[in-house]
């Protein structure tokens, strides 16, 4: 790799050729503020706060758009730079409202943080700010089905404009008017209609673009923890962070409050889609299964686990007594690899080496409306672990390229050749595809036993003889294999609701009750056995994958924009910026730290 060596603030810095000064400074851990620069989109150079002094150049330069050259001598803490930067900050705040106490971005806002650190201590603005509010008009306007735009707060960095043009591939956002009248807007005020619209909240460096989903719901200091996990709503498997909000004092625990993407250059870069971002409400929704249920007569009645397991075992043994292969399993590809591994041992133990043929893996596909030029594509397959099932030896037909074939199972069930169907579905409602035939088959008596191990109460669960509450993707440590074949870990973020149990645990205790050996105490034990059984594959390291736990909020108060956490991780190692103290002026004499501002109307 070709490199160039330059000096920044007296430090020798060596970076790859073609890097800009700002990137070099970030890599070297030197704090330079910026707004319009974002590592995932192109360089614009419109916010001007990243200005630095370069020796032998006549004027201050924007570091985001200046490419590093050998022997450059750059100063980021020069008195001239500090004064000029403070001037830029003063201008940025000319029209920016000081509604930080009620702004959703407050506490995780780069404008707030950088203004404290690099801006002038006081404002000279004694004239009214530009506001859009008026008769019947709000500065805060609808910005499409998922977003709100607060035009007052916008600092016109154009990150959203470039995101839509470059990543989404459909430039729906533009800047209308010019100069002082400029505002972010969409054609005919139609708003942003995009599958990637949620990312605009992440890249907006101020509280101008907010998601309707998160708006007014929580503040950074209400979120005691954040868990690095992954999204399992399609076969892409984006790395995400699950944000947890503390419940009120009278209620224990935490609740999911939002999902944001986590930088992963191999899979999702800085982005995630709206499906993964906003489809988490079902996890803590009213339809969640919280207790095991048994059918008594025509009604499903809640029961304790110890009252459910013996009859379940009895009914299954009865169904499989004449022909074990008349017990079939219908498994959603939302099941994690651990669950599939335990299930494999279960069916092998019961049915012999041909056991896997009793298992049908199901998933759905849906067409995601995206522009042809979109760089971030959302795959059609709506399940995270089709490849995991394939790697374990299950029959998955066309895999992630097509739909599963449920017809053989359906024909067998409707012809009465199947005595029992055991459904395993830890995914959201509908993730098995069309199984509307299963309930009627049970009701008509063609099928003798229907067991549903799932997470939501739906039509299928309502028709079941036994309902076993399992765990969703944010409630268990589990691994999934995405469409690239990457084995990825999804960490537990929240506790299980009610008496629900992790799915591998339910399967393992069922297997134990049927007389099989299941020496597992935790999902980690399962992964260890999985790793031992598949040497030489990507699963051989399954037991070394890292699962995170909630990170305390005080660490995250420093992490301003979640999509730029990689930056904050080394920018601020101690505390959030405090007024009167500045990283950039550490160790400098007080008179040099003072940013001089001339009082208005006084000539020097």
């Amino acid at each position: 790799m070709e490199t160039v060596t330059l000096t920044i603030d007296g430090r020798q810095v060596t970076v790859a050729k073609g890097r800009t000064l700002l990137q070099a400074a970030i890599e070297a851990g030197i704090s330079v503020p910026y707004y319009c620069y974002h590592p995932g989109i192109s360089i614009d150079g419109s916010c001007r706060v990243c200005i630095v002094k370069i020796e032998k150049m006549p004027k201050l330069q924007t570091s985001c758009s200046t490419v590093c050259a050998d022997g450059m001598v750059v100063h980021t803490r020069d008195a001239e730079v500090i004064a000029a930067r403070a001037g830029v900050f003063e201008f940025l705040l000319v029209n920016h409202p000081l509604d930080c106490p009620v702004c959703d971005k407050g506490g995780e806002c780069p404008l707030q943080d950088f203004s404290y650190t690099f801006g002038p201590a006081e404002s000279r603005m004694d004239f009214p700010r530009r506001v859009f509010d008026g008769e019947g008009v709000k500065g805060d306007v609808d910005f499409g089905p998922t977003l709100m735009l607060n035009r007052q707060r916008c600092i016109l960095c154009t990150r959203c404009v470039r995101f839509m043009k470059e990543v989404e591939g459909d430039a729906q956002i533009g800047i209308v008017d010019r100069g002082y009248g400029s505002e972010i807007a969409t054609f005919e005020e139609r708003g942003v209609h995009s599958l990637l619209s949620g990312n605009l909240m992440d890249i907006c460096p101020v509280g101008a673009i907010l998601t309707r989903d998160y708006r007014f719901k929580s503040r950074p200091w209400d979120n005691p923890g954040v868990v690095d996990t992954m999204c399992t709503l399609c076969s892409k498997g984006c790395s995400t962070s699950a944000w947890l909000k503390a419940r009120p004092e009278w209620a224990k625990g935490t609740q999911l409050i939002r999902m944001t993407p986590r930088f992963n250059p191999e899979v999702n870069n800085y982005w995630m889609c709206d499906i993964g971002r906003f489809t988490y409400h079902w996890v803590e929704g009213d339809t969640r299964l919280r207790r095991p249920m048994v059918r008594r007569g025509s009604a499903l009645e809640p029961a304790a686990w110890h009252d459910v397991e013996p009859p379940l075992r009895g009914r299954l043994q009865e169904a499989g007594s004449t022909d074990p292969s008349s017990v079939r399993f219908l498994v959603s590809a939302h099941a994690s690899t651990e669950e599939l591994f335990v299930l494999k041992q279960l069916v092998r133990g019961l049915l012999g080496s041909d056991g896997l043929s009793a298992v049908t893996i199901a998933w759905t596909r849906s067409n995601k409306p995206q522009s042809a030029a979109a760089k971030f594509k959302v795959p059609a397959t709506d399940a995270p672990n089709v490849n995991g099932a394939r790697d374990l030896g299950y029959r998955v037909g066309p895999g992630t390229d097509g739909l599963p074939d449920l017809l053989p199972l359906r024909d067998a069930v409707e012809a009465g050749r199947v005595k029992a169907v055991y459904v395993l579905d830890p995914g959201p409602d509908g993730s098995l595809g069309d199984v509307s035939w299963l309930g009627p088959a049970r009701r008509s008596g063609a099928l003798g036993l229907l067991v549903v191990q799932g997470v939501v109460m739906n039509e299928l669960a309502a028709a079941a003889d036994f309902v076993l509450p399992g765990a969703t993707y944010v409630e268990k440590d589990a691994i999934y294999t995405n469409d690239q074949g990457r084995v990825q870990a999804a960490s537990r973020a929240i506790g299980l609701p009610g008496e629900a149990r992790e799915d591998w645990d339910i399967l393992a205790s069922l297997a134990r009750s049927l007389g099989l050996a299941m020496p597992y105490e935790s999902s980690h034990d399962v992964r260890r056995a999985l790793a031992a059984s598949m040497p030489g594959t990507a699963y051989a390291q399954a037991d070394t994958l890292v699962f995170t736990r909630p990170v305390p909020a005080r660490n995250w108060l420093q992490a301003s924009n979640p999509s730029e956490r990689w930056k904050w991780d080394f920018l601020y190692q101690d505390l959030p910026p405090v007024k009167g103290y500045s990283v950039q002026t550490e160790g400098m004499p007080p008179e040099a730290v003072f940013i001089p501002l001339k009082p208005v109307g006084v000539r020097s």
Partner: protein
Amino acid sequence: MSFHPPMEYAPARFHKSARPLPEAGGEFAFTPENQAKFDENVKRYPPDQRKSAILYALYLAQGRQGYLTAAAMRHVAQQIGCTAAEVEDVVSYYTMFFTKPVGKYVINVCRTLSCALRGAERVTEELRAKLGIAPGETDADGMFTLIEVECLGACDCAPVVMVNDDWHEHLTPERVSQFIDDVRARGRAALTGCHLRKEKNGHEQLTVDS
């Protein structure tokens, strides 16, 4: 799983923007003649910089009805291969593009330094009084539209006004009334600008009123 989770979306209730939107307009397409001109012009740019032809396309579109409707912008976007938002971006940037009907003569008064020093503000005041309209408005009979603009590039002849695409120089406040009457009577012939565009070697004129 739906494309978007169900969320309340009631733009009519209070989250309304007061931004003046371009008129929707009827169906719009270039005339075959303009289409040919556009196709010819777009060849001047490399294929990956097709967007450079956007100003020319907008002039062609505006030339037909004097202002640009949303339908016209959409047609230009389609011709250029960009989105309507990007076209509106350009339209709203330039003072030469209009999104509502304008008068036969659009009077652009320069208000930048040289003209301002020579009394451009008073020129505007005189024009307001004479025409009975404020900057940005069109008079009742659709003859004149008054706009204040930034530097027209004729500082040596300040104060200068631009009428449609041609300059009129040294328009002192005292001469405004007579100038308006003159334009009303003689049209473009009343203008003095030395920058008055000439028809030369077949290079076509792009005027709003042509």
